[in-house]
């Protein structure tokens, strides 16, 4: 534990405050969660709570939810939510589940922050590492981030993916590689794209192994981790096929993300591009977009080898911009990890611009969507333009954070350059 003194009372107060905020909105403003569920910025075709309810309804009435175009989420959600009391009569249990998922995410984030991995990893120790925020502040920034609260209120199932990813990282930094791999398998099972986090997560787990149980050979360690993920995923798929009675969930959940057959608008760049794409080039550009998304993993992992947590953070930001169905939930996950790098904030160059662009897009996005869909005084280009701005703002943040982290690394070699003007060649 570092500087900021955290008493158990304050911890409990933070979590209780976050839980009360969510539950109070759920119960006191019952229309607001439904309104948020309908927002395209929060609910995407692969995370929407309304679609989950439809899938659940079909599942409980013995119609395969995957034999239709509405439900594209993981099959194991169906038995999970069937166990809860009926949403229409007793919604409080669903609210509690979502609130608990958010609190668990915050707990994992707290662990990551307290481990100090962001400031000093196994291979690199930042000279600035003393200047950092405590787990309390970082958890609070996550729990009271409006994007996180809105996602939780909108009951998007990406809440569970976020929770699984954060737990995977928390396990990895606390020296539990198997736990990390199992958590990542769950995240990948729920949303598919977290599978791309596997290489940096293996490196992170490798670096943070407990000395008494350490595997020296990196290849052997990576192979073990990969096989654990494959094994857990195989078990999850097998269970899913038992639950739904067939394998048709595969094309309907992961196939939809791969082929983008549902073009519902969202804050990402894919939907309008593929609405306007010529049919003969559709598969080509789908492949290009996916390759582009995957291409960051290798480059970042190698270049920032000494700080795997940075790679994970940057990838989170990139996924939040470039994955097929992004929502503000992905941004909230990225923004939850960014405060871990409090020590490099002074090295960032465009903080004001980034904040301004993100705020601009956050406020204008819903307004432009309204103009297009409801008022009819704007057209699709309005919303498309704002998603471009949103994407550019986030990519600016990713680039700026990356620049700051790399400059921080460089200044270890050139301590005399602190505070000097530099350039890149």
């Amino acid at each position, binding site marked *: 534990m570092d500087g900021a003194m955290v008493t158990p009372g304050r911890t409990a107060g933070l979590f209780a405050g976050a839980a009360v905020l969510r539950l109070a909105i759920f119960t006191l403003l019952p229309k607001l969660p439904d309104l948020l569920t309908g927002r395209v910025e929060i609910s995407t075709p692969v995370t929407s709570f309304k679609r989950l309810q439809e899938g659940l309804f079909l599942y409980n009435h013995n119609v395969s939810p995957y034999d239709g175009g509405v439900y594209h989420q993981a099959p194991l959600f169906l038995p999970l939510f069937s166990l809860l009391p009926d949403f229409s009569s007793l919604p409080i249990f669903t609210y509690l589940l979502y609130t608990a998922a958010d609190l668990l995410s915050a707990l994992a984030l707290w662990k990551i922050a307290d481990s100090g991995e962001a400031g000093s990893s196994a291979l690199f120790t930042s000279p600035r590492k003393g200047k950092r925020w405590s787990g309390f502040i970082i958890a609070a920034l996550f729990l009271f981030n409006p994007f996180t609260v809105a996602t939780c209120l909108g009951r998007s199932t990406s809440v569970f993916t976020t929770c699984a990813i954060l737990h995977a990282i928390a396990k990895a930094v606390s020296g539990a590689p198997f736990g990390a791999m199992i958590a990542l398998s769950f995240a990948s099972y729920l949303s598919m794209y977290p599978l791309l986090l596997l290489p940096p997560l293996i490196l992170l787990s490798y670096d943070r192994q407990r000395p008494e149980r350490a595997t020296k050979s990196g290849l052997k360690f990576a192979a073990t981790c990969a096989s654990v993920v494959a094994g857990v995923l195989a078990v999850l798929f097998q269970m899913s096929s038992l639950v739904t009675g067939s394998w048709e969930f595969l094309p309907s959940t992961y196939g939809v993300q791969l082929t983008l057959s*549902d073009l519902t608008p969202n804050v990402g760049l894919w939907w309008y*591009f593929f609405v306007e794409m010529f049919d003969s080039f559709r598969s080509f550009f789908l492949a290009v977009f996916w390759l582009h998304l995957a291409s960051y993993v290798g480059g970042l992992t190698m270049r920032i080898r000494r700080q795997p947590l940075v790679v994970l953070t940057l990838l989170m930001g990139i996924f939040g911009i470039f994955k097929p169905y992004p929502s503000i939930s992905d941004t909230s996950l990225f923004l939850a990890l960014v405060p871990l790098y409090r020590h490099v904030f002074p090295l960032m160059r465009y903080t004001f611009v980034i904040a301004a662009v993100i705020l601009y897009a956050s406020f204008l996005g819903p307004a432009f969507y309204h103009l297009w869909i409801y008022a009819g005084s704007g057209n699709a280009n309005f919303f498309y333009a704002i998603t471009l701005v949103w994407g550019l703002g986030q990519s600016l943040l990713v680039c700026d954070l990356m620049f700051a982290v790399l400059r921080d690394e460089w200044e270890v070699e050139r301590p005399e350059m602190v505070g000097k003007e530099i*350039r890149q*060649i």
Partner: protein
Amino acid sequence: MGQFLSFLWISIFALLAFSSPALGADYHEQLNLRPLPQSALLASFNFRSNTTVSEFEKGNFRFFPRSLGQILQHAGTRELHLRFSLGRWDAESWGARPWNGAREGGTGVELWAWLEAHADDEADRKWLTLTNALSGLFCASLNFIDGTRTTRPFMSFQPEGDHSTLTNMHLLYGVLPHEVVCTENLTPFLKLLPCKGKAGIASLLDGHKLFDASWQTMAIDVRPICSPGQECVLQIEQTIDMVLDIDRSKRPRDNPIPRSPPADQLPCDTSKPYHSHDTCFPADHTANQDWSLSQIFGKPLKGTCPLTDPAVPPVCLQVPDSRSVFVSEGAFERKNPDQVSRCYEIPPSADFEMALPKPDSSADTTTTAVVAPETPLLYAERSFTGHGQERGGVQTILRNPSPDTDVEFVYMETLPWFMRIYLHTLQARVAGDARTPNSTTDDNKLVRQVYYRPAVDRARGTQLEVRMRVPPASTVFVTYDFEKSILRYTEYPPDANRGFDVAAAVITVINPHHGEGGGEGSGDDAGGKLGRVAAYTLRTTSLLCSLPTPDFSMPYNVIIFTSTAIALAFGGVFNILVRRFVAAHEGPEGGLGVVLGRVKGRLVGLVKKGVEG
């Protein structure tokens, strides 16, 4: 020449009738005219012909149209129903539908058929053959009935004919709500008739009048009919029902634009106390119904079709016996014992004209002018709720007018795939009943059974069949939510902002005196068979659903802008990853200053050379 031909036809017919007396009634046609309230007239044309199954299979088509027969044989179709419809039946004022709704379709084109096939794939192939062939025959876009517009109804339709076995029969149903029914569909329809449109009641049919009607539906039904002790026959029944607005029809063709009459000729209700030279309360339309055949159809009836069964009167009129009707010479009136209808025997080769004068002004009440319309078993109307192009809802209002009996029916929707419906939001509630819907599990539950096949994007439409009931003298609201999806820009029709047509909902009222399953009945005529499954059929109007549209003019711009955004992000990341950090004063010089310096040096060199040269 025409006379010779008709003589030839008559002699052939006589020969046939003589040689096989059982087949004498192979063809008949009848026109039923029924004045409706509010200046409307229902004209119901019915043409029916039979051919034995053995003759049909040998290819001996007598009255059965060869073109259609060959298509049916080729596509393995055992029973066929085809509908072309336009307009809306105003049940509130016109009452129950003709034929109890069995001979009508929703707006556009509807086709359902029982095909003989061993597997679903084979049925799909035969269905494709059938729709494409019928498309050519009827000049309609039936070939657009593809996988997304085809469903296999589970409860709504039952075969009307007698089939020895139903095991290999596949029912397929397709609907094109956007199809505009017009003259090019009428011409092939008339060509299927033995007398074409040349003689008999079909001579009244004219595209200008038919498609000007307030409501019209053309139906073709082909079904096998078996009666005990006789060979099975294949029956083709062609029906045209139309509701004409009498005022509109009487407007002369050379002056079709409605103009308000001079003030002194306005039909005013003079009994009103405030009636004066400058105030006018419109008189009841019913009181002014006077028309003649040639006024409303544009031409008189050209005799009878010589092939028709002489025992069936060709023209019938349903007005109270108290009204007087004038007919042309040679026609013979026969009043039916029910006091509200009469039929006419007409001379075979002379024009027939009929005129209905205004009812006596002394007794101008509705009861004496027209036969009071029968109350339908159920009223239904369907509409969209919500606003915006993101999501919406469908609301159907079903009203049971009967004071003491339940109405049980199957409500069927076939929706396009881009309307993503949420079945968990389906609710049925009785108007004025505050209880939570669907929560009661007792016998009073409104929804009895739901058959749902969800849509698959770009492959299959939604099929929803709900068996439910409406308690006596009450109104039930059925609602559900849906989401409008955005399509690829090539999937929008040319006028994308007009919206997409959503097919009519089909409501089949189940006959209360009959158990489920449509068991084997003795069935001596089509009406009897129809009655054993569906007591009444009605269709709601079709709906127009507007989807969000992209900007069609800028695919290139979008590709360029998105690619630029991606390039900026990727370029930024790549730039930072691969380049080295140096202090500002270290490393090679670069940037604009260096380039400018070089260019300056070159220029200076050139100038010097020039000066030296």
